[in-house]
């Protein structure tokens, strides 16, 4: 049973809109200083998260990245709790302990965004291996960027998944840049070529087209679920905003204005769904409520700063012990 909120085109549009509006609100909150530290906006890449998650079942899992809001929302996380997390409030997904880069909801199979590029992939492989060993039908989607293609641990993970025939779908969101570095000058060979070289079926899809992504992801999920092992999807996409909200300060010019404009013309949210306007309104209301929830959530008590440091309950010695 696929994710109910992504079951039809309207649901997928609705979730993409939710992500976009969420990111716009987050940007505002960063600018106003409400969100400390900033975020990596997902705007422009919505079709990837939504297309992939549309192929997943509720019990399936995912690992995410520094640019994780889209993945987390697409899998079904509560936007109010994600906003509260960005605010560092106790009502946040992680109780305010993780922030934008570590948002997780294990109850939904969201094994966490991750601050280290490439780090999610081997975690996905291990999670998938464990599920497979126990005979569970779980498939794990692992999202990462083009920059992660040059991380050793990710390349090791492709091999490990391949020889283990682990039920993983590797999703490379190739948005053309790792921060300021063009993928074209950083990635020798090709993304799909690399996966294929490890013995993993790979295909490139239009990452601005949610239905194309969903179709390809569907094939990959089906292969994983039926014991066919991992697959690799390269989704060609683009981020509409800065790498990180902090980038504004630098006035960087690594992307030509025409390039940005031409990708913006391919906005994944462009739609001729008749109910789009109604959905947009609905999303706006939902987000307003989410914002209300987040803003009303309490600040954590500094006395709890080391809570959860050890799952076993060990309490660490204080840094000012006398």
């Amino acid at each position: 049973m696929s994710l109910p909120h992504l079951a039809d085109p309207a649901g997928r549009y609705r979730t993409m809109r939710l992500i976009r509006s969420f990111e716009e609100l987050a940007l505002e909150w960063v600018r106003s200083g409400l969100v400390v530290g900033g975020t990596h906006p997902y705007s422009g890449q919505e079709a990837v998260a939504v297309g992939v998650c549309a192929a997943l079942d509720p019990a399936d899992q995912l690992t995410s990245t520094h640019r994780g809001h889209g993945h987390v929302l697409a899998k079904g996380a509560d936007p109010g709790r994600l906003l509260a997390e960005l605010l560092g409030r106790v009502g946040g997904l992680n109780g305010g302990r993780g922030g934008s880069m570590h948002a997780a909801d294990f109850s939904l199979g969201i094994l966490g965004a991750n601050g280290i590029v490439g780090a999610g992939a081997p975690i996905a492989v291990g999670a998938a291996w464990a599920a497979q060993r126990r005979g569970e039908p779980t498939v794990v989607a692992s999202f990462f960027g083009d920059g992660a293609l040059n991380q050793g641990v990710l390349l090791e993970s492709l091999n490990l998944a391949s020889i283990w025939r682990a039920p993983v779908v590797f999703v490379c969101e190739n948005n053309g840049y790792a921060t300021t570095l063009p993928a074209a000058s950083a990635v020798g060979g090709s993304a799909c070529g690399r996966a294929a070289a490890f013995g993993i079926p790979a295909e490139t899809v239009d990452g601005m087209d949610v239905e194309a992504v969903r179709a390809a992801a569907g094939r990959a999920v089906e292969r994983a679920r039926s014991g066919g092992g991992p697959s690799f999807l390269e989704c060609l996409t683009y981020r509409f905003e800065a790498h990180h909200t902090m980038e504004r300060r630098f006035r960087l010019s690594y992307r030509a204005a025409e390039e940005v404009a031409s990708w913006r013309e391919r906005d994944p949210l462009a739609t001729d769904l008749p109910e789009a306007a109604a959905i947009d309104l609905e999303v706006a209301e939902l987000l307003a409520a989410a914002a209300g929830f987040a803003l009303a959530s309490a600040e954590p008590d500094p006395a709890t700063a080391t809570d959860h440091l050890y799952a076993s309950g060990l309490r660490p010695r204080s840094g000012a012990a006398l």
Partner: protein
Amino acid sequence: MTLLSYAKAMNRALADALEADPAVCVFGEDVGAGLAGLTPGLQQRFGAGRVVDVPLSEQAFTSAGIGAALNGMRPVIELQIPSLLFLVFEQLANQAHKFSLMTGGQARVPLTVVVPGSGSRSGWAGQHSDHPYGLFAHVGIKTLAPATPTDAYGLLSSAIRDDDPVVLFAPAGALGVREDVTAPLVPVPIGAARVHRAGSDVTVVAVGHLVHQALAVAEELAGEASVEVLDPRTLYPLDRAALVESLGRTGRLVVVDDSNRFAGFAAEVLAVAAEECRLLAPPRRVTRPDGAVLPFALALDRALQPDAEQLRDAIRAVLK
């Protein structure tokens, strides 16, 4: 009399854990062949699906262990060389250790990493002879260094059952130790030190294989002084209560620790003593030099590790 070797004790702890809990599994290089001494016979007994020979991808298989742990497994990772811990430092310090707090307690990572043969194995030279337990203790990962077969059994058992990541150093210098075991083997709690020899004049805190050296020196000096030998067993979290209690009786401290001196485990013991105890004499550390890299030639390798003479000198110095 049943003489149990240290290696065999670890093997038995792992076998018992695999037997008791289907969530336990092993990832490591050549674990099927049991090359490192930890796993002989286990793949035959529990299958290659639970005792898994992995490719030379330490970073990926360690993090795969994290992923498996997040999904309810209790993986044991075997690393053949202590310095492979450097290679997976990101995975242990930045991922495994941080998951619980960063997720607000949603996740736990019950991962055990074992290095069977840490420190110098004669003739393995600079890249194979490290004893980097202090790094993990500093980062805050539970860090164990059993000295005896029963403690090796007991601490490995506890590590596997623990809900946090644990790194267990089995010093090469202890792997050959044998013990006449009469009582049943049982888990040893993490965080509990052990007084191997009671004494009233000086407390020698000894780590891993050096516990045996310390006991020999204590025996040798029995006519001169009453030496207490305290084995922390768990380096982090340190059993401060046991340390403070012992120092309260002896008032004198020597730490013997086969790792680099600067900001190592011994430094922490001295710091705690300085903060919490009134010592009668300046404490002493017997360690490797600062920044030590063990040279290959045996005489040079030995020259950089704590030896009995240094320990004797240090004990005598604090007794002066």
